[in-house]
């Protein structure tokens, strides 16, 4: 055995140990909570005129979330009361399929999901990657959609209910429209 061989062995083992470092769930949870704060700030901003004149009441209270990786933690639920009808923004968590976080907007007319996704995902189909391999040829190495060298920009998007689930930008117009749909008589 040469010294060179031993050096390679040590380097390989070091690589393996860094590659299997546990996922940082605390960081994931903290990021989700900070995006949640930003979302609520936007919501209050969209409604500031109505909050100021007392026509809409917005309150926050803590709820407990329990997820496998992060364990139990608390997050704020935001309640918007228009007339007699409350609409709640209920934080669901961060361990989800295809997105980094979710808040359910619940009213008497149903639920609209607000999801935190890579800003490049303009439609649900963007989450799917199709690879074609030719018979008899080496399959091309799997390419991640997040392979771009640019850092991922996370954005909240409104996701309409199935069967025609579609993304909508989370902006003032779309949010107010969603709020109106959920709080309608």
């Amino acid at each position, binding site marked *: 055995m040469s010294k060179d061989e031993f050096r390679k062995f040590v380097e390989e083992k070091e690589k393996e140990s860094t590659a299997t470092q546990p996922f940082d769930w605390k960081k994931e949870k903290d990021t989700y909570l900070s995006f949640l704060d930003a979302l609520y700030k936007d919501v209050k901003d969209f409604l500031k005129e109505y909050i100021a004149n007392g026509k809409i009441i917005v309150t926050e209270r803590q709820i407990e979330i329990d997820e496998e990786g992060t364990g139990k933690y608390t997050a704020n639920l935001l309640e918007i009361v228009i007339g007699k009808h409350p609409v709640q923004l209920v934080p669901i968590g961060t*361990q*989800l*399929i295809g*997105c980094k976080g*979710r808040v359910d907007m619940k009213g008497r007319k149903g639920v609209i*999901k607000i999801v935190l996704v890579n800003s490049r995902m303009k439609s*649900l189909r963007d989450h799917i990657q199709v690879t074609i391999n030719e018979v008899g040829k080496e399959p091309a190495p799997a390419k991640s959609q997040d392979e771009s060298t640019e850092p991922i920009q996370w954005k909240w998007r409104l*996701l309409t209910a199935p*069967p025609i*689930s579609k993304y909508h930008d989370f902006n003032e117009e779309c949010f107010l429209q969603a709020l109106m749909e959920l709080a309608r008589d």
Partner: protein
Amino acid sequence: MIKRVSFSHQNLTFDEVLGHHIIVEKSVYAYYRTTMQPEFVGYTLRELENELKNRMDEHDRTSCLSLLSAIEALLRMDYLQRCYEKEKDDISRKMRALHKQKGYRASLEDDILELWKQESASRETFSQAIAAFKYRHWLAHGRYWVPKLGREFDFDYLYALACELERLIEY
């Protein structure tokens, strides 16, 4: 009254119902487990599991309905054939008497299965079949009431019952 019912030969065998049941079950499972569907974006794993369970339960009920229809076809065709072919055994004679009265409109539960229950040594199996048809009635009429069935039904139970019935009525 119609003298003779023409058989369509479109009735399914129990194995055909079972084959379809398994293929659809595998497909639903694959849809939820081995592929990433865009509509799952935002789901928690628990929500995905619950939805898969609900789909499987629904598929089970649909297959139960199909299997119970196939059981009905088997029992009714057996009844009619015993009447048309003038077999001399006791049950065939009693079925012909029933046919004289009610023809092809004899009730499956109250007449045909009840007759089998009286005449067969396996009364319990025919009682189970009568109960299973109460479940079919509940499924076929929209499940809007709370049924009093005495037991839970699923495809596996009904498939075993179907095979047992087939064995018992063979002549």
